[in-house]
C-alpha cells in the first residue's frame, strides 16, 4: 500500500482477486475459516513450511536500462538515496552482463536469493538473520546488533547496512540506522493473504516485461512451479549448494 495507486495491469488477475477477496470477506464475516484459497493461512496462525515463496526471473524478458523493479522497491520500503552510492541501501539492483564466450548481453535484477541454507543465517551471532518457515530470509531488526557479519557471508552481496538516520519510514517496512537489511519478498504484502506479490514483480508486470514471476514453489499448480517445470532455470552460485528460492532462466 502506498500513497499512489498500484494498478494491476493484468485484468484477469484483478477479477480473480476481487472474487477471491469477496469470498474471503464472506468467509470471515460468517465466522468460517478462509476458504478462498487452498491451504490459505489464517492471519492469526504463524507461517508454516507448507508454502515456500520463491521467484523465477527470465533474463531474456528483463529490459536493459529499465529500472522499474528497483524504483518500485525503493518506493514500497521508503528507501531513499542520499547521493552516496557506496553506503546507500539497495535491496534490489539491476545488473547488465556480457557472456564472455558468445558476447551476448543480458540484464537481470539481483536481490536476496532466499536460500534454503542461507550462509547469512549461519553466521548471525544473535539469530537476527533468520529464515522464516515459508522460505523468506529476513533480518529481525529487533535483535540485529549491526555487526555486518552476514554481509560478509552473503555470496550475492544482497545485504545493506544502514549508515545514517532513517526518517519517514513506511509503517509496513520498519528500517533504522545501524541494522542490516535486505529484500524480504515484501512479506507485509504476501502475509496479507490476498494474492499480493512483491513490489518488484508487480512493477515488472505493470511495465509489461513480466520478467519476475513470484509464487509458491511448493504448490504444483502455481504459475511459478509450472514455469520451472517447463523450462530449465538455475541458481546463482549453484556450486555452493544453497538451494535458492530465486532462480534465473536464460542466463
Amino acid at each position, binding site marked *: *500500500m502506498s500513497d499512489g495507486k498500484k494498478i494491476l495491469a493484468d485484468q484477469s488477475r484483478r477479477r480473480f482477486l476481487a472474487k477471491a477477496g469477496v469470498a474471503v470477506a464472506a468467509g470471515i464475516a460468517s465466522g468460517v475459516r478462509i476458504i478462498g484459497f487452498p491451504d490459505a493461512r489464517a492471519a492469526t496462525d504463524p507461517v508454516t513450511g507448507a508454502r515456500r515463496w520463491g521467484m523465477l526471473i527470465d533474463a531474456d524478458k528483463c529490459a536493459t536500462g529499465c529500472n522499474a523493479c528497483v524504483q518500485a522497491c525503493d518506493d514500497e520500503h521508503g528507501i531513499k538515496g542520499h547521493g552516496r552510492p557506496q553506503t546507500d541501501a539497495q535491496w534490489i539492483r539491476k545488473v547488465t552482463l556480457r557472456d564472455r564466450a558468445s558476447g551476448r548481453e543480458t540484464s537481470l535484477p539481483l536481490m536476496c536469493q532466499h536460500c534454503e541454507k542461507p550462509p547469512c543465517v549461519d553466521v548471525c551471532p544473535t539469530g537476527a538473520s533468520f529464515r522464516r518457515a515459508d522460505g523468506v530470509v529476513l533480518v529481525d531488526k529487533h535483535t540485529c546488533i549491526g555487526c555486518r557479519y552476514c554481509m560478509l557471508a552473503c555470496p550475492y552481496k544482497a545485504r545493506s547496512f544502514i549508515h545514517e538516520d532513517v526518517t519517514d519510514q513506511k509503517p509496513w517496512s520498519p528500517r533504522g540506522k545501524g541494522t542490516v537489511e535486505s529484500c524480504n519478498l515484501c512479506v507485509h504484502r504476501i502475509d496479507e493473504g490476498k494474492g499480493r506479490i512483491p513490489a518488484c514483480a508487480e512493477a515488472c508486470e505493470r511495465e509489461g516485461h513480466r520478467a519476475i514471476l513470484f509464487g509458491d514453489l511448493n504448490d504444483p499448480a502455481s504459475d511459478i512451479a509450472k514455469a520451472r517445470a517447463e523450462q530449465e532455470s538455475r541458481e546463482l552460485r549453484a556450486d555452493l549448494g544453497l538451494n535458492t528460492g530465486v532462480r534465473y532462466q536464460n542466463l
Partner: protein
Amino acid sequence: MLYRHGFGRVLGASANAGVFFVLCLLGTAAFASEVSALLPPIPPGKGESCVEPTDIMRRDHMKFLLHQRDETVRGGIRGAKHSLVGCIGCHVQRDAKGDAIPVNAEGQFCESCHGFAGVRMDCFECHAAVPASGQTPAAFSKRMFPLAASAGAAASPGAE
C-alpha cells in the same frame, strides 16, 4: 531502554518499578475529577477502550509489544491485538490540517509518559510514528487487520 533479558532485566525491572510508581500516580489522578497539573496529559485514543484495560496496559505494554513483535516478524502474524501499528492507528493525534502527528513527538501519546518517566524508547528509530498517510485510522485498521476489523471492532479494537 528496557531490555528483556539478563542484566537488562534488572535495569528494566528497576525502571519498570519507577514507571509503575509514576503511573500509579497518574492512575489515581485519572480517577480524580480533574487531572493534576503535575502529571502529563495523555491524549485519548479512538473508540471506547483500548485492547487491554488501562492499568494492565500501563504496566505491561512492553511485555505485549515484545511478545507480539516476535510473532509478527518470525511468525508472520499481522493485525493481532497487540500490534504496534494498531496502537499508533488508534492513539495518533491529528493536527488542524488532519495530518498525523508522530506519537513520539512532544506531548503525544507515547512520549508524554516516556518523557515524564525518563525511559527512552527505541521503537521509532525504525518504526514509523504515524499511520500510513492518506488513510483514516479506521480505514487503515480495516485494511491491515481484516480479522480484527470484522469482529466488529473497527471503531474500538479490543472488544474482547
